[in-house]
């Protein structure tokens, strides 16, 4: 979606402000928001692309006014409510008011290290061959789906070069909507700065994005 999250190339957000000796978390509630989000992935049954869509799928006015973990929390609440795991009145009351929905598994302390170590690899077996090879000129398609996509607006319509054939990976556009993993070949595509930003762009810069095959066409 062309939402508040698609920030590449936007102006007006001001300078980057690195914080000296920044702590990992700025407040206790941030720790809890972080841990809850990770812990609910297992019983909740959603995937990372659904989580990302849940976070970005809100008014850009809200998205841009919220802090990072506020967005995480809002995304988590949306997912919990959508799936009927928690109801709005329960969040308001701060207590469970209805019978919990049965879930397959929950994350036990003993599983934490193992789960984190395993992560969520997205590479999949395939019997198809990649359409593009290293060095090919490709163009990012002009697509504007209202649902989750990982093709940022600022590269759409622009031509670049295949820099790396990564492998066959879960396709987020499909996975985010529950339409299955639909794995697709994934490439790193390199764009010249002036191709993206016009003749006034910095001639010494190049930008690479990782792009699935359905995002690309021959250029």
């Amino acid at each position: 979606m062309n939402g508040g999250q698609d920030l590449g190339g936007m102006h007006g957000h001001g300078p980057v402000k690195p914080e000296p000796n920044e702590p990992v978390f700025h407040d206790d509630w941030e720790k809890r928001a972080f841990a809850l989000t990770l812990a609910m992935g297992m019983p909740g049954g959603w995937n990372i692309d659904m989580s990302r869509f849940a976070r970005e799928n809100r008014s850009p006015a809200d998205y841009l006014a919220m802090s990072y973990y506020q967005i995480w929390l809002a995304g988590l609440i949306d997912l919990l409510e959508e799936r009927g795991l928690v109801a709005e009145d329960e969040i308001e009351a701060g207590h469970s008011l209805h019978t919990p929905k049965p879930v397959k598994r929950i994350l036990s302390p003993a599983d934490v290290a193992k789960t984190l170590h395993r992560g969520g690899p997205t590479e999949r077996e395939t019997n198809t061959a990649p359409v593009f090879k290293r060095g090919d000129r490709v163009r990012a398609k002009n697509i504007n789906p209202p649902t989750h996509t990982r093709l940022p607006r600022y590269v759409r319509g622009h031509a670049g070069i295949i820099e790396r054939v990564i492998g066959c990976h879960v396709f987020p556009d499909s996975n985010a909507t529950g339409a299955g993993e639909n794995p697709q070949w994934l490439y790193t595509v390199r764009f010249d700065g002036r191709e993206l930003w016009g003749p006034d762009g910095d001639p010494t810069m190049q930008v690479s994005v990782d792009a699935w095959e359905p995002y690309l066409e021959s250029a």
Partner: protein
Amino acid sequence: MNGAADMGGMHGFGAIGIEANEPVFHAEWEKKAFALNMAIGVANIWNLDAFRFARESLPPSQYLNLSYYGLWVVTLENMMLDYGVATKGEIKAGHAQAPVKKSKRTIAAADVANMVLCGSPYNRPAPGPALFKVGDRVRARNIHPKTHTRLPRYVRGHAGEVTRIVGCHVFPDSNAVNKGEDPHWLYTVRFDGRELWGEGSDPTVRVSIEAWEPYLEPA
């Protein structure tokens, strides 16, 4: 600039909030905010393009969360500070503090009707012949100025057709940064919806914009 004002094609803002029997103003202060801006405009301390630039330069999170006239008020404050009309102290105090510099030009009540009727035309004598004619295929240039522009992001890089030569008009990109009116030929350019939004989009949609000659190249 690629700021929050450039909304064309963004997702996530939700349904149109249609208000039945909407009043012209929703609060007394809105009337004053409106009239103050009109009246101070006549004093010619800044031009309309500079005002628009100041308005869209607000951080996107602020821009998107202010009401319409709230945006005007905040921008007016910023312009008054930037152009030395008032000091921070004065704005905080809500009063002019000595010494009061009197303005040369104000609008009197008797002038209002005249101002409303005459407006402020933007057409200027042409410095040369128009480069394009009606029916020409043109492409909106891929430019990303950090300052004011009236070329929305969603048309950049896309090809359309000149449907009207409007005339020679003040160039906002220059006027907004007080670099003079620098008039250029202005065209209406029509784009096919699928050219803008991709193959799958509504084939019955055409979108027209006004584009100054420096925004365009032959396609």
